């Protein structure tokens, strides 16, 4: 989806390659729509910058800031020359009314955000790390259209990502996944993790949740 170029006169903002668009922990109350170019989303971990995502034409970023009176949760950096449309609370209503497709896109984005946040909370509320790790796999599975039809599932994820989803130390999560590998429940590759029977994981978590109530 592209927004009409006519909006560019009023809302356009251009960034040069490598230029920072906003920085983690900076306050903000506006969001961006990418008309052209790519934007890298990064997070500072110690002295290093970890890339979380690379966004391109038609993507929206920074939308959390218009909801939460909170600092930015990540840094956005232009990869190429980037042309964006920049919107804030003041022009939000007018913009939504004149661009129903954009409004609908935001609705879909927020639906997914709520689900992600709910699942994150569910994972955090489990009381042991093994269950948390298993539930992260389930959460990833639920996003996959094949879930429910196949037993074995492939996830393009890493141990680091899983650790950050469950808010647990990487080495501890690594240990748990190693145990799964030894038990044949999981296969570990550099760029992906394969779960041999996702239904087993599902049963485990259902039972766990029941026991916590």
């Amino acid at each position: 989806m592209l927004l009409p170029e006519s909006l560019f006169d009023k809302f356009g903002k251009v960034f040069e390659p490598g230029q920072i668009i906003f920085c983690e922990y900076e306050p903000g109350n506006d969001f961006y729509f990418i008309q052209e170019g790519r934007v890298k989303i990064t997070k500072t971990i110690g002295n290093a910058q970890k890339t979380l995502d690379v966004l391109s034409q038609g993507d929206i970023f920074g939308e959390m800031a218009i909801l939460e009176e909170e600092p930015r949760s990540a840094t956005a950096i232009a990869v190429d020359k980037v042309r964006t449309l920049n919107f804030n609370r003041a022009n939000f209503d007018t913009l939504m009314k004149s661009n129903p497709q954009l409004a609908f896109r935001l609705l879909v984005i927020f639906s997914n955000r709520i689900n992600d946040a709910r699942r994150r909370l569910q994972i955090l509320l489990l009381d042991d790390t093994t269950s948390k790790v298993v539930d992260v796999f389930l959460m990833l599975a639920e996003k996959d259209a094949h879930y429910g039809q196949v037993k074995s599932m492939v996830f393009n994820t890493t141990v680091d990502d899983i650790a950050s989803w469950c808010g647990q130390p990487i080495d501890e999560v690594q240990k748990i996944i190693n145990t799964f590998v030894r038990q044949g429940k999981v296969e570990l590759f550099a760029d992906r993790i394969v779960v041999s029977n996702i239904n087993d994981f599902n049963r485990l978590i259902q039972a766990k949740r029941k026991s916590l109530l």
Partner: protein
Amino acid sequence: MPIARNYNGGSIVYFAGDKGDEVYVLQAGRVILISTALDTGEEIREDVQIGEFFGVKSSLGKFPREETAQVIGKTTCIVFKLHEFEQLVMKNTHLILKMLRVFSKQLRNIHRQIRDILKAGAAKDPSFELMSVAESFYRSGNVDHAVYALEKYLEVYADGDYTDRAHDLLSQARKGLTYPHGYPPLQIADQKHKVDASFVTRSMASADSLGDDPFALEEGAPAARPAEKEPGAADILMDGLTLMSQNKADAALAKFNECLAIKKLHTADDQEAAERAQYEKGRAELKLGKVDDASNSFSIYLKKFPTGEFMKHAIFQLGVAAEAKGNKERARTLYHKVATMPPPDDATRDARKRLEKLG
């Protein structure tokens, strides 16, 4: 074309965990949404209003349904396929704005809960964190980004704890110099500056305002209610509390319900009153022996105000309700939760007493 579907009483529109791409509107009859509170595990039942959409989020996001939708009595729903729903709302943008408003409120509530769990470990000071990010850019040789972040720091925190340091580093970075060798590491300043909670309180005060702009949060609630003569939520709540203190739980309950039915909450006081009314409704119901209703009211309170003033009290009351139902195990779990939740207060004490009694 959207179709009208008739249901017999007791039938299920969908179960929690189902996947489906249909969106529903309640046309006639009654539908309740049954969900489980993530933190307490309590069952929450909420009525769908006539004309209200349900099943929207899970269809849009293509994830499993969060709740079970059950029909009570003969009921008719209009069923939309996802693309039909899309067509409908695209022509009625105000519907999208209304839903965005509801969604943003839900999202804020969940985020608050997540923050509460995570911040147990580390309360973060945004000014310190912004400064750390700036220095991290600088140390890793990203001078331009460091300049940006340091300028931002000075712009936002003109008299912040690290202003001198930021000026110093910025002047070096602007000269194109690398991060000064042997520069003393950034250290967190005095405790009293640790968390600027003002923006949290501000957005909490207005989190439940039902203004027309979904994101009109920063302004907060207007100081005074427009010059209408009808009593506001705060006045009705006071009546209810007075009746409660006179042991007239029945009349009090009516007042709390009246308070909760108000759609426009004009002032921060009214919003606070609506929060309190949700809690007091439960207490009144408990007093009247309507234990299930009371549990439901406390659960709704916890869902809507997960960090509300009466959060601990509501969990405690859920325990009392469980005990009244003879579910000692559950009561014990809930009391224990309250007893171990900081800071210690009257709810902590009451919970400990109840725990002792249960043995």
